[in-house]
């Protein structure tokens, strides 16, 4: 293999899991159909799915039913069990197939995993990764298309990451698995096929660090997960308007890399925060408040927010396509600052 090995976001997730499971026997994967066809080994039918999004193909075959555990459709049960496993020595990666399902199983994450370290006076760690799929765009409507990442970032004790590409997916998942705190790892469904160069060896991308996805001098566009690529498209389009846009890719929502955000805005004097989540009390509002509160004197105009509308994600294709932020809206918002 060469330094230019190209793999997809989906394969990067599998690779991070595989390498960490090889490195540390305490790492397990559990969730609904993470193998698929559970118990049908004799007929050769196990691992029919390798996850609903097929990220885990090959893991069941390599690590077996003791470490790749198909669960009943029982999110409260297995997420709670993942917390129990984490506080007793394992490092579980628990998949929540769609983040929207958190409605039936929030307690293990919000009240148990998030607070166990704090409420025990620091006497226990919860090395749990909850990998979940977020975002609109696959025609599954309101109950399977939400972001909800800011929902988790609202809870003290949870770390929340939202990678924007294959390279960061592998590095952040490796970091999440090795982290001693609960990490919510948000995979945008439309990014699973994104491909780029990903090193073969294990590596961590540190949680809590944003990156400059594109340097620029005139305006800062801030995105996360899929909206980072929306920002990059908008930045490209803004070139035609003679505007040199910088793109900050948040990668982590909690902890939030305030320094990188503020340093960029102080350089450019203008900010557009782009967030696929619902606008009320959300990520964009939080980052905008940070900028307004800490970098007001450096701003040449108001902080702009480009978000989804405050509405459930609609089914009908034209409505769904119009729902999330797109490059045109980001470009228009940026233009208003000049």
């Amino acid at each position, binding site marked *: 293999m060469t330094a230019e090995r190209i793999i997809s976001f989906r394969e990067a997730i599998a690779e991070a899991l595989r390498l960490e499971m090889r490195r540390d026997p305490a790492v397990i994967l559990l969730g609904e159909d993470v193998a698929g066809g559970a118990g049908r080994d004799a007929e050769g039918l196990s691992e029919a799915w390798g996850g609903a999004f097929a990220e885990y193909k090959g893991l069941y075959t390599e690590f077996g039913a003791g470490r790749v555990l198909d669960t009943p459709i029982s999110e409260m049960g297995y997420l709670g*069990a993942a917390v129990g496993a984490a506080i007793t020595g394992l490092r579980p990666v628990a998949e929540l197939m769609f983040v929207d399902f958190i409605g039936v199983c929030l*307690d293990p994450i919000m009240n148990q995993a998030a607070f166990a370290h704090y409420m025990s006076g620091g*006497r226990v*760690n919860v090395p749990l990764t909850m990998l979940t799929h977020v975002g609109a765009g696959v025609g599954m409507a309101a109950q399977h298309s939400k972001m909800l990442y800011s929902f988790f970032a609202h809870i003290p004790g949870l770390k929340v990451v939202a990678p924007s590409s294959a390279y960061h997916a592998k590095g952040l998942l490796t970091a999440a698995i090795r982290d001693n705190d609960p990490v919510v790892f948000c995979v945008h469904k439309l990014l699973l096929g994104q491909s780029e160069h990903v090193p073969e060896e294990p590596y961590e991308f540190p949680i809590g660090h944003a990156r400059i996805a594109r340097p620029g001098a005139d305006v800062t566009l801030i995105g996360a997960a899929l909206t980072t690529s929306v920002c990059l498209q908008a930045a490209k389009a803004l070139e035609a308007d003679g505007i040199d846009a910088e793109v900050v890719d948040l990668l982590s929502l909690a902890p939030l890399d305030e320094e990188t955000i503020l340093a960029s805005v102080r350089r450019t004097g203008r900010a557009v925060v782009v967030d696929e989540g619902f606008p009320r009390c959300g990520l964009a509002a939080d980052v905008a408040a940070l900028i307004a509160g800490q970098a007001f004197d450096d701003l040449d105009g108001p902080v702009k927010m480009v978000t989804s509308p405050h509405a459930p994600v609609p089914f009908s294709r034209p409505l769904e396509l119009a729902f999330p932020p797109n490059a045109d809206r980001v470009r228009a918002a940026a233009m208003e600052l000049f």
Partner: protein
Amino acid sequence: MPDTAPPPDSHATPSRDTLLALHATMVLIRAFEQRVATLVLKGAFSGVGHLYVGEEAVAAGVCGALRDDDYVTSTHRGHGHCLAKGVDPSEMMAELFGRATGTCKGKGGSMHIADFRRGMLGANGIVGAGLPIACGAALTAKLTGSGRVAVAFFGDGASNIGAFHESLNLAAVWKLPVIFVCENNRYGEATPVEYALSAEHVVDRAPGYRMPGLMADGQDVLDVFAKAREAVAHARSGEGPVLLECETYRYFGHFVGDPARYRSADEVEWFRSRDCILRSAEYLQQQHGVATKQLDEMAADAERRMDEAVAFAEGSPLPELSEIMAGVCSEVLR
């Protein structure tokens, strides 16, 4: 059980020493809880106290059947489970007082008290939340081959919550070494069990999950201990989970200060007449010739232990205000 407790007997009838140890645990729990009641009424610390008085035989009998390294998850009424698992009463009292020396450095309080050194994975403010966590501890035991088992204590009220049903199903399909111990004290807060429970008994739900169900007189430590040993042996042998229902009663209301007007004086009197400590004392005297004086000394020892615990708590420092942000995550965040 305290460190000095003997291992569970291998034969059916527990030894005199084992019975004395179980009795001592119950006496210790009652002394602790009665002291807590006094302290709460005096306003010695904030928060409510959910007292375990009346239910002591369940914690003592079940934890008496466990190894020191076995796991326990608990409820909002968790002091008894802690003490039966060998958690230090002084550190517990300090936790209730919100002191820096508490089992959780004053960050958890009565409802979230935990001591991971003793396999006590936490009381819990959320009804039913301990059941899936116990499944996870049992999963660790199973996957690592440690031979440990996990016990989930919960009330009759929790048997109606989704986490109960998901946990029983998950434990059954994964054959986890977990014992689900229902403390049926007849009330979920103020609501009687016969109103809230669709089944006649909680244990009636076991067959639906294809696991053994056992019923114990939760006011008889001998019966609880016997059934718990059977359940623990089953789970530890790899045969999977067990549901053990213990019929018991709480003498106080849901919390200190709840006058418990939802139940009759006759009912309370009937359950009090079957008190687990009185019955255990009678058994020890009649079957093992234990002198009244020895039992009195045991009770006096427990009271002295509580004096020490309160003195330790009152003499301990409060947490620094910087503790508010300490330990939100396992390292300092930016």
